[in-house]
Structures are given as structure tokens and as C-alpha cells.
């Protein structure tokens, strides 16, 4: 197998001999994860998926899964600067991989605020139309609304949504108020909720944190307050969520997200025109079973919140703006 792309940070870790040995942690259709001996998680993605932080993309044939390719949990993994050896016979050639930089892209030309509102509304509408709402994304229409009116309730608000919605709204309220201790506590009541390896609530939080940073860049705000917010959100994640998810949350707190999500955020804040936005949205919605939809819900929440912070917390205006 040939690696087509590698995250610059992963490449650096390999070059620094930080990554020596590890084991295959989990295997899915188009992704497998490796946990190194020093607890770094490296994701190997099909090259049909855009790169992500700590990832290596490989040339997996379109209709072939990682399982079929022979990757199994527990296999030993050894990294070198030129290749990754998995088990006794699987090799991934790293020499031809292009580098992908996971750092956030803040040097974009911001669009006008009325276009931003239009884009945020599209994110919500397309998510509700095309997304898989079996995670928590059914809460999207009710975010930042303190008391959803009964008739307004979307049938997509499943039992997971009912449980998590008040907690997420509480978390959003803490971000607005800037009460970091309450925020840390509120985040602890959200993190790790959802059945799978990357729980729905964590996907949501990852995108929320990254979106807040991009929103700062859009409004030319100082990023330090948001870094403080994000640190509060991830303050209680360890032992409250899975190892893989905790790693993703830590990276997202710095604005490191998958390339698809980064492109989506740039489309929201810098694209004048709905076509590119919709294409990028649909591409993110395609992630996993519910992950893409939960991520998109987080993008919506983060963008909304970003506007709200600029508007000094006047959520009522925003709700009417986006209705």
C-alpha cells in the first residue's frame, strides 16, 4: 500500500523517533487507528477521505474495506521514516506521501455578515435535510433557545437529543457568560455521550471549538479567550470519553480538525455563494454513520455562538435572524 498524504505533525513525530511501535486499536470500513506505545493515536484513512490531524492517507481501492485489506485489531505496528509495517506482511510506503498541515487557516477574506447569516442558515437547513439525525444533531434547531415550544419540536429530537439538549444549551450559556468553572463542569456533563468510539457529543464539541476559533478570525477578535474556553471544555475529558475521542477533542481545541471540516468552515466564513458551501457540507455529512452530521451540528452551534459573542450575548436577535 502507498501513503498518499501524511499530517506534518505525524511525520515530525516519526522523524523524531517518537513513534516507534504500537498496535492496531480499531478497524472500520475506511479507517483504522493505531495506538502507539506512548499513547498517540494515528489514524490511517482511505484516500477517498480528506486528511485529518494525526492521520496518514492510504490508497485503499474504492470498494475495499480496511478489514478486507487485512488490518485487524491487535496487530503490531512499527514506524520508520520510509514505511509503516503492520503485522508480518503489510507495509505502507511513506516516501511518496504529500504533507498536509493540520494548523487552522485563519488568513481568509471574510464575507459580509448578511452572507454569513445566510451560510449559517444553509448549514442548519442542509444538515436537517440530508444529515443522519440518529446521533444528537436533531437538537440543532433548538440550540441557544432556552425553552423550545412544544409545537416547534422536531420529530428528529430522539431520546438522546432530549437528554443532551438542555446540557448543551447550558454549556453554550456558560461560553457566553465566560464563567470558566461552570463551563468546565457543563462540558463534563456533555463529553462522552453517545454509543460509539467517537461519541456523538464529542464530534459536536470538536466542531464547536474549531468553529469558535474561526469565528474569532472572522471578527478579528483576539483568540486567547476562545483558547481559554476550549481548554475549559477539554478540562475534564480524560476518563470521561474514549481514548481516541479524547485525542480528537484535544486537537480540536487548538483548531485542528479534518480537512473536510476546515474547508466547510472556510466556506461558511469566506465563500460568497451557496454551491461550494453545499458541496463541502455534503462531503462532511458523509463522514461515518452519524459523525459527519454531529460535526456539522457543532459547526452550526459554533458559528451561531461566534456571532452571539460579537453581539454581546443577545441570542434573541440571532434566533429571529436565523428563523
Amino acid at each position, binding site marked *: 500500500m502507498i501513503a498518499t498524504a501524511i499530517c506534518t505533525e505525524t511525520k515530525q513525530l516519526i522523524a523524531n523517533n517518537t513513534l516507534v511501535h504500537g498496535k492496531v*486499536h*480499531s478497524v*472500520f*470500513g*475506511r479507517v483504522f487507528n493505531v495506538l502507539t506505545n506512548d499513547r498517540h493515536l494515528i489514524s490511517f484513512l482511505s484516500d*477517498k477521505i480528506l486528511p485529518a490531524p494525526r492521520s496518514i492517507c492510504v490508497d485503499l481501492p*474504492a*470498494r*475495499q*474495506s480496511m*478489514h*478486507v485489506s487485512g488490518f485487524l*485489531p491487535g496487530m503490531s505496528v512499527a514506524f520508520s521514516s520510509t514505511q509503516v509495517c503492520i503485522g508480518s506482511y503489510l507495509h505502507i510506503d511513506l516516501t511518496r506521501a504529500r504533507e498536509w498541515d493540520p494548523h487552522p487557516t485563519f488568513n481568509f477574506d471574510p464575507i459580509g455578515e448578511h452572507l454569513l447569516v445566510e451560510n449559517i442558515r444553509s448549514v442548519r437547513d*442542509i444538515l436537517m*435535510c*440530508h444529515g*443522519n439525525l*440518529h*446521533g444528537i444533531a436533531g437538537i440543532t434547531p433548538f440550540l441557544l433557545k432556552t425553552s423550545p415550544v412544544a409545537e416547534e419540536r422536531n420529530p428528529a429530537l430522539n431520546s438522546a437529543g432530549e*437528554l443532551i439538549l438542555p446540557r448543551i444549551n447550558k454549556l453554550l450559556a456558560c461560553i457566553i457568560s465566560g464563567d470558566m468553572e461552570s463551563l468546565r463542569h457543563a462540558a463534563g*456533563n*456533555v*463529553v*462522552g*455521550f*453517545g*454509543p*460509539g*468510539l*467517537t*461519541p*456523538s*457529543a464529542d464530534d459536536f464539541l470538536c466542531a464547536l471549538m474549531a468553529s469558535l476559533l474561526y469565528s474569532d478570525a472572522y471578527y478579528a477578535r483576539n483568540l486567547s479567550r476562545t483558547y481559554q474556553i476550549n481548554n475549559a471544555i477539554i478540562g475534564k475529558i480524560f*476518563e*470521561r*470519553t*474514549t*481514548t481516541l475521542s*479524547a485525542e480528537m477533542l484535544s486537537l480540536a481545541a487548538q483548531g485542528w480538525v479534518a480537512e473536510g471540516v476546515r474547508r466547510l468552515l472556510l466556506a461558511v466564513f469566506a465563500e460568497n455563494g451557496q454551491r461550494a458551501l*453545499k*458541496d463541502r457540507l*455534503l*462531503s462532511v*455529512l*458523509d463522514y*461515518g*454513520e*452519524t*459523525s*459527519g452530521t454531529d460535526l456539522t451540528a457543532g459547526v452550526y452551534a459554533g458559528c451561531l455562538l461566534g456571532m452571539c459573542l460579537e453581539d454581546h450575548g443577545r441570542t434573541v436577535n440571532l434566533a429571529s435572524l436565523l428563523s
Partner: protein
Amino acid sequence: MVLKTVIRRGEYYDSGRLMIVTRTISKLEGIIDAAVQMGTALNKEALKRTGLLDKDSEGASVDDLMISMKGTGEGVESALVQLDALLNQSSSGLQDSEYRPKTIDSALKAEPGLNFAIISVPGRFAKNEAMKALQKGMHVLLFSDNVSIEEEKELKTFAVSHGLLLMGPDCGTAIINNVPLGFANKVRQGNIGVVGAAGTGMQEVMTLIHKHGAGISQAIGTGGRDLSVTIGGAMMLQGLKALNSDKNTDIIVVISKPPAPEVSDKILQFIKDECRKTIVVNFVGGGRPESIEACGAISASTLEEAALRASELAGHANGAPRMAEEDLDRIARDEAKRLNAGQKYLRGLYSGGTLCYESMLIVRDFVGDVYSNTPLNKQMKLLDSAAPCKHTCLDLGDDEFTAGRAHPMLDTTLREQLFEHEASDPNVAVILLDIVIGYGSHSDPAGVFADLVRKHKENARREGRHLIVISSVCGTEEDPQNSLTQERKLQETGVIVMPSNAAAARLAGKIVSYANSEERRL
């Protein structure tokens, strides 16, 4: 009652699969509740709320999979046996190697040779999705409704200019290369092609062709507005072109509710000038037979006749039971005699729009004008569509009845309620029902109505009335519901089951006509 938790250390599955496994286990016999998820604190909290938390789950770590279930000892044991098989299926029951794309782009990325898209998204998004597929060179079946006629025009203009099919919007049925799409039946493969602007009309013709022993090459739906002046029959012409050049098609059946006259002329002119194959035309209740025949096509007055003519041309017309007119008359007289003096009216409760339309045309010849939510002429439109009066036929698949609920071919609830209402009306003599089966339809519509018919026939008998229910089953013995089983269920409760929609309507018309005749009153 047993509470059981299994902890699988370091075992990982995606969220979708775990949700499906949770739902599947919860539905197993003897299981009251279940949850399959990672051992995070919040997931444990959710378990506590539902009474599924025990010492084992309390001890699970964030990277452990917790399988929790509550039920009878036997139920839990049985669920545990099935657990691995359930976990190793993906969320759709497909194996992991089968990737299921969520967008047209990702589908094309995975399978670059794709040339056909079925689109079923809310109407306001449908045009963009359909256009995207067309621009990528794909034929489109657009199942979505609520697409404006201007958008339909734009899509079809593009499709025609690029030699593509845009079936729809609101295209309910098609069979392409022997693959049934949308609401469709399992029919024999053969040399008869069908192109139609009438979903259940196409299903009726195709299933009757199958019963005659003939088969279908392709069936192309055009969407109900295709033969309007605005659209100009764009897809009907495109479909005719496609079937005309299809080497597996020898005979073509054209089905539509009455087209706009200028569009009808255009279609017939095309048939005359371009088509090299034998064509049977049924413009249900429209189009003059002499105009159709003048262009070299064969005119059929009903869907039943269209199927028969096409099957005869294909050398197969011996299979389907047909009822002689004298037999219909005999049954009608016998049934009419059993009605009491107050029972005068006919009520049709249809799930198929074209079937409803055809029935009204037939019944009108026997009983006069028929009220409807989709009437043959505007004067007969019901003021309140859910309140039938005198002779009425309702198309329950029409938009006003399907807002916020599934189509009546799938969700029988509304039709059941209306049946109960009409069956209790002392003025009603006959209730007509269509039973449309096949892919996408209710799993046992006859079973649903059999119970109701039994109950209301008995009620009517106690009240000194004779309730007549007439039906026909649109489907084949190869459909998942099996037409023969469906017919038997209806017959066992006293429903008169006719071999076609047209025959059912004729019988109903005759019964009501006899019931109201001078002869009977004397």
C-alpha cells in the same frame, strides 16, 4: 427478571452499528430494554436512568464496550447467543466491505461508472440534486414531489438536450433493466415496454401483462405533469425514443391521464413519424380512438384492455382470468337484490390515483356523475375531501391527504378510518377498494382490510343491511405480499375480488345501477 451486562474490553464499533444492535436486541422476545455503548460516564448515567446500570457496567472503562440488557432469563440468554452476529453486521446489514455513499459525488467517486440516480429528498432540494446528477451524465428517477413546474421544465430541457431520462418529479414507479424502482411489482421480463405518466396505471398494466403470460422490457415513468402544455410531453417523447431503439422491446404501451390536446397531437405525430414498433395507447378517458388509430397505434379504452392488447401482440393472452359481461350482470343483479331500499350509493377509497380516475370514468357510465377530491370535472369536486357524499371516489394518495403522513399504499391508517365511516353509512351500497402491492407497499394490505370488512359486514347484517365490498389486487404472485394470498384473504371475508380495476369498477357500477333501477323498485 434478569439484568445482565457484558463488558468487551477494547472492542470498538461505529455509532450507527451500535444503535442498530441496541434496537434489534430491544425488540427480541423476552427483552424489556437494552443498550450497547462505550463505557463513558455519561453513557453510564443514561443506563442508570433506564435502570440498566449494574455493578459490571459501573466497572467498565471508557474504552470498554458495555452490552446491557434486561429481560427474562430465557430472553437474555437468547440475546447473548445472537450478540456477535449482530455486532458483526453493519448498520444496514451489509458487510463492512460494502461502502454506502451519502452524496452523489461520493457515490461517483466510489463507482465512477454509475449512470443512474434515484433522488428522494424534500422538494425544495430536489431540483439541485437532480441537476447535479444530470450534469454528471446520469439518468434520474426523481421520486420527490413539491418540485415546481418551472424547475421540472428546466430539468427536462437539460435532460433532453443531453439525451438523458429525467423520470418525474413525483415518479412513483419504473422498471429499468428488470430492476423494479419505487413502488413497483415483480413482473416477468419480456418484450413489452411501457412509458407512462400514471404510476398505478403503469403498475396495473404491467401486472396484468404478467398475468397474461407476457413480460416487460422496460417501464419508464415520466411524472404526472409531463403531458401538460408547459412540459409538452418532453419525457414521454424521450421515453418513446428510448424504447423505440431498445432491442429488447417489440411492443410499446403508452399510458397517461388525458394529455393537453396539443401535447396529445405531438405524441401521436411522433408515434406516426418515428416509431417503428407496435404501440398501444391508453389516454385514460382522453384522446379520440380514431386519432390514435390514424397514427398507426392501437387504442385501448381501459388499462385492462391496454394490457390485453399488448399481451395479444406478444403472443400471450391466455393467462389472466377475465369476466364475461353476462357473469358480471348476474353477480350484479344477485348482489343488488340483497340491498335494502336506502342503500343507493357507491364509495371508492383508492390508494392509486390513476386507478381512482379510471374507476370514475367507468362508474360514471352506470350511475352518472361521481364526486371526488380529484374529479373528472370541476363541478364534482367535494367541498370537504374527507366527507364523501352521494357517489364518491377518493384518491387518498393525492397531496392533500399525504401531507405529514406516508402514502396510503404504505400507511393504511387514513383509509381504514374512512372505510369504517363509509361502511357505517346506511346509504352506502358498495365500497370499492384498490389493493396495490409490490415493493414499497404495505406488507399486508389485504390483511388490514379483511379484519375491517369482517367486522362491518357483521355490523351491517345486524342492522338489516347488506354491505358490498369490491376490490382488485394490483400485483403479482411473485410480489413479496403474493397477490394470490392477498386475494384469498379478501375473499374469505366476503369481499368480491375482481381480476382488474376496470372489472371491479364495472361491477360496482352495475350493482348500484340495478339497485336504483325501476326494475328493482317494482
